[in-house]
């Protein structure tokens, strides 16, 4: 399988991508990877609700501050 030949770390960008913190110059490369990598597409969907959940924490801590 092709997926066995590429390093594990090449799939790790999906987390930064899901959170929108991947550096701009890496975004296109990862989006190309995404097209051919089912594993990352599945994980991107799985991570999909985390930004919203983390926003709960973020806005809660913001409201505490004046």
């Amino acid at each position, binding site marked *: 399988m092709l997926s066995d030949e590429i390093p594990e770390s090449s799939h790790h960008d999906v987390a930064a991508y899901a959170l929108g913190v991947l550096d701009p110059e890496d975004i296109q490369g990862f989006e190309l990877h995404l097209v051919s990598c089912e594993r990352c597409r599945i994980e991107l969907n799985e991570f999909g609700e985390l930004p919203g959940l983390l926003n709960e*924490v973020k806005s809660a801590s913001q409201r505490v*501050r004046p």
Partner: protein
Amino acid sequence: MWLVRRQLDTRFERLDPDDDPDRDDRLIRELYQEFGGPLLRQVRQSTGNDLQWAEDVVQETLLRAWRNAAKLTWERGLLWAWLLTVSRRIVIDGRRRRGVRPREVEPPEADTVAVPDATDKTLAAIVVADALRGLSPDHREVIEQTYLRDRTVSEAAEILGIPPGTVKSRLYYALRALRGVLKERGVAS
């Protein structure tokens, strides 16, 4: 499966571009109908509830989606992730341009992160804050230094003094751990 590309292509077939100067408007309007509301809700949280700014960001994001329409062959969930990614970049870039120091640039320190105000507690906020505290220090730190402080991977890498690749891998395992905990507690699906 809902493919944006297919939908856009269908429209191309139906409409001769020369005959229909309103075509672009219509496609953008369609993106608005589908994603405008949810996107605005997400973006407002990162603009500190600045509605005007949030609306500008949503508009710019959907315009970029339209410009990239030929490449956006993903299913709906992936397009949504793409829109969130792009909108977050626009907010962050906008802050830099304005020289605005956002309030969340200085969130509480690690051990006090996101302890919600008693009057503002929501169940999700409490559960998520608790889940974050339960992560390993490395994992918690990398989520804080990126997403919670609106920093990119390379910015966080510089601050943490570790390579960007390490930040990305830590973030990956951190999100898996976080999602596992939130799933266990019934907050994530």
